[in-house]
């Protein structure tokens, strides 16, 4: 599980840097940085990020009530992926 978490974190960082912050190194991009409030990821960027997470990790992001909190930081995205894959998210948020 720890190896998967690191792998997801690395992949997420890689995607964010490649698409939104090309002048930043992985070490400089804090996992707890608020990506939305800091301006790293704008509104269109958020849609791209959600789409990428859905496609890469096979999560039905359009089915679950996705919250901006789920994508506010790398840590939050990683938790969202973990919870979605374990089925926790779907059960908790279905109305």
């Amino acid at each position, binding site marked *: 599980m720890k190896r998967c978490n690191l792998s997801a974190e690395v992949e997420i960082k890689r995607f964010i840097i490649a698409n939104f912050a090309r002048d930043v190194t992985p070490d400089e991009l804090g996992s707890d940085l608020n990506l939305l409030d800091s301006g790293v990821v704008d509104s269109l960027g958020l849609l791209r990020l959600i789409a990428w997470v859905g496609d890469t990790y096979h999560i039905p992001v359009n089915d679950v009530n996705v919250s*901006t909190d789920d994508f506010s930081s790398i840590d939050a995205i990683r938790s969202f992926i973990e919870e979605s894959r374990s089925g926790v998210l779907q059960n908790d948020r279905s109305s």
Partner: protein
Amino acid sequence: MWNEDQRALRAAITELGDVLSKDHVAREGTGEFAFEAWDRIRDTGLLGLPFGTEWSGLGQDLLTTMYVLEGLGYSCRDSGLNFSTSTHIVSVGVPLQRFGSRTLKKRHLPKICDGSAIGAHAITEPDGGSDIMSMRTSAEPDGEKFVLHGSKTFITNAPIADLFVVYARTGKRGSPAAITAFLVERDTPGLSIGNPMSKMGLRTSPLSELFLDNCRVPRSNVIGSVGAGFLILDHVMKWEILCSFIINVGEMQHRLERCIDYARTRVQFGQTIGSYQSVSNKIVEMKIGVETSQKWLYDTAEKLQRHENVTNDIAISKLVTSENNVSSALTAVQIFGGYGYTTEYGLEKELRNSVAGTIYSGTSDIQRQRIASMIGL
């Protein structure tokens, strides 16, 4: 493709075409909303199509809703009424159905379903149309209330609406997590509506500004959660595009049939104008426009129903349909010649109406920008 029940739901609207279209040219001149026709639409149950039966809706899916709305566009010549109908369904009903609390649904969805309350949503601001994330209208928490302050513009249905979904800033300006959606009732102190705005087209669909001056709204009127407004709006916009532009497809189909009939009967220089390739080619382009738009919209809706990502598809669908609609409307005026230019034939009105589709729900430029962003540019 459509079953008997779906066809019956659509027939309930298309049978009313003449009634709904009554005096549409005359009302265009005065910008008068067709309240009588609205009541007839209410009677069909169309307004509650996509909403749960527990809330007095008809519990139909997106595709069925679109199929019926396409029928509305085909049969009703009052595009302003058509647009107001679509806006009513998506502006308040759709976000409440998906994100609203049980209390909000119970209190307001039945009224949306039967049309006894008319809905609108307030998004655009005087300084922020395409750039909605720069919105200035703010919502400050104060105990169990939020205090809203600011102004919105270009709000369809505002002069006649009873319920508004107001999108306001609750966080850092520019952040996608900074917007919250609030349900605000018309008689809430601090909310005022501007005078109806005169515009190029869709004149029978009332439009005005909205002003919020220390408007206190219960915390329980937050739709979804604080900060969820951007993603709620993204969901609503998908429905808005699919529902309002499938109406345009119905309108385009009707226009195409008119042009075919005219081209087959109008004789110039001893032969029907349809026999000249320069005319028939134009009508063929109209036909291609209808089919292409219809396919994009329904295919996108099917993907959305399968919970697939449709960010690109929605942008393309909107771009293709809105621009086909303008092209189709201009062609129709050309084919009818001088008659097409008169108000009596209703075709110049359709051309003026069609331009709005390249602006609302995200301009054509914004749709192109969105596609560019999604493909990594």
